[in-house]
């Protein structure tokens, strides 16, 4: 297990450090979401959980010594003319398809970069995906916070067991009918009064 160069331990701690951290974060988040009693703490767990996945994806896209996928000057297929066409955006830098004449480009043929050249660029896709995932995460958190607010207004607490208790009492009080919103408001007011 611990070979001459550290073997597995070295691999886990040095080469795969990101992945270890992501697993740890994932588990912390999962634990908080399932085991915590406070609704806000659950949401904090949810955020940690989603952040762990973002870390995982970003780690996928890391490449040592690579640059962002914008043409380096020496690779620019448009050469010094590029400045003349400031509005002419270069196509995907990673395009490995055969060089095809761009109909709009009347001056040059767009050359696909060679494998040797593309190796100097990092893959932007995982990061772009994570931009989307961050947006989704923010939206989820926003909706969840709004829901917690609604729960707090109705039951006067954000502790899960107390909410459950309030719901149980409510359903026992009016067993056969779905309580009208009025009676619920009344009940929650009473509960708040009791607390105060």
């Amino acid at each position, binding site marked *: 297990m611990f070979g001459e160069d550290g073997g597995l331990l070295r691999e886990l701690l040095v080469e795969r450090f990101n992945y270890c951290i992501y697993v740890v974060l994932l588990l912390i988040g*999962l634990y908080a*979401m399932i085991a915590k009693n406070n*609704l806000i703490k*659950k949401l904090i767990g*949810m955020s940690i*959980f*989603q952040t762990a*996945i973002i870390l*995982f*994806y970003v780690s*996928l896209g890391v490449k040592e010594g690579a640059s962002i996928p914008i043409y380096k000057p020496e690779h620019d297929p448009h050469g010094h003319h590029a400045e003349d066409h400031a509005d002419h955006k270069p196509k*995907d830098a990673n*395009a*490995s*398809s055969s060089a095809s004449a761009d109909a709009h480009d009347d001056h040059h043929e767009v050359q696909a970069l060679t494998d040797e050249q593309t190796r100097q660029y990092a893959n932007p*896709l*995982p990061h772009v*995906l994570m931009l*989307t*995932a961050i947006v*989704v995460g923010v*939206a*989820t958190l926003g*909706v*969840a916070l*709004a*829901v*917690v607010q*609604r*729960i707090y*207004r*109705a*039951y006067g607490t954000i502790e899960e067991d107390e*909410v459950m208790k309030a*719901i149980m009492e*409510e359903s026992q009080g009016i*067993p*056969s*009918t*779905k*309580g009208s*919103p009025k009676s*619920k408001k009344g009940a*929650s007011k009473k509960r708040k009064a009791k607390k105060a």
Partner: protein
Amino acid sequence: MSENSIALIFACPLFGAVLCTFLGGAKRALCHPVAVVSLGGALWGGIETLRRVVASESHEISYLLGGWTLDSYPRGVGIEFRADLLGTLIMLVVIGVAFLVALYSKLTVSEETPEKEGPFYTLFLLQVTGLAGICLTGDAFNLYVLIEVAALTGYGLIAMGSARAAAATFNYVILGTIGASFYLLGVGYLYMKTGTLNMVGIQEVIVQQDLADSATMQVAFVFIGLGILIKMAFFPFHAWLPNAYSHAPTSTSCLLAPLVTKVMIYVMIRMTLTVFGVDFSFEETLWTKLLPWLVVVAIVCAATMALAQRDLKKMLTYLIVAEVGYMVGGVWIYNYYGLVGSIFHVISDACMTLCLFLGAGIILRKVGTSHFDGLKGLFRRMPLTMTGFFVGGFSIIGLPPTCGFFSKWYLITGGMLAERWEYVVALLFSTMVMVVLFFRLIERIHLAVKESGEEFGHGHGDLDLPENETRFDEAPLSMLIPLLLSAAVVLLIGIYNQDVVNLVESFLEPLNLPKGTDR
């Protein structure tokens, strides 16, 4: 116009949703017509797409947004929308169900969530956009985004109900996020290994580079599988579903209950057949050995829990959980007829669940409670509503000529041919439970027998009920017509089942699934 019919499916509800946001303030009354019209447009796009898919030679149409190409290797740079027979059929079900619910929702929305028509229809249309998108997208990451679009709007729609619904929504948010995140993780591992997110592209890379034995692929498979099972409320992970759906506003539960779980089953089928491929997915692993037994446990437990309920809507939600077990089982017994049954059951279950929830919504509105005690003598009051409701019930039980009979027939045939007797027994057990459930309801609705067994009267002509509880008092037409339409669809799919099955079969034929007992 016709070649852009796929884009129309998303564009109509999307722009309808934007319009509803703006109309939500001063011109609330316009939101309902906008929703109906935009879903009508989507429905036209859906039917047109199905027509084109059936007419095309390879039975699939590729639609690329933004002028990207599929020429590079691995396939696909941009996001591809890929309509094949499976996706198109499910998409059509989604749009059709949503259209009927939109028709139905006029009264319930203005009564249950007054002055919130704007937000409601915005979320409603976005939900439909998300669900229809899931059915047609050909990109694994895009699928995640659409799952979250559908989930987020679903949270909003459910939480619009009572405070109890908000409490249920919170659990849904937590479990839904765990499910979707697991799916996202799985997609990350897939991308790590194959370098593409296009579903067909992933499959091509797996075959060409022979990745079947790779541990990374196994991890991806398990993460994606777990995530989808949580999202579809498969039995041990079903905790979020019953409360969320039974406390949600009527129109919400009518929209979500038939669609969300079914669409997630579609995702599972898509992942196993298209992305990972038959050989990889059904390889003998711990997963494929364990899952059929979990299905048995799921069906039996969910059916038993449904039996214990005394509230109509709650009971129906447990039925959904049991039905999810049927369909997952149909996939994992690994048999051609099982898969035909599974896909057909996705379609028929969406229709019959819609029928039941529309009926339950009318009962809830008329009686004020969905508890069993409120049901007595209802047939005399609302004969048409109850007839529609019973058609849905008979279909869940599996009585011919409803569509539920034929899909269950295929499932059981598949189970027998694959010699999965435990699955067949579980299905039959669950059928028995549903017979008990629905005939207990029918007894109550017709004969008015009390919980204790004491009879009120001798038939629905003589119930000893006060005059005002027995006089003819049918549901308003805006609710009744969608219910009867959905009941008619349940019967029509049953009668024309061969046509639907033919479409499903021409999708499954090239996959070389085992048809007999040879495993």
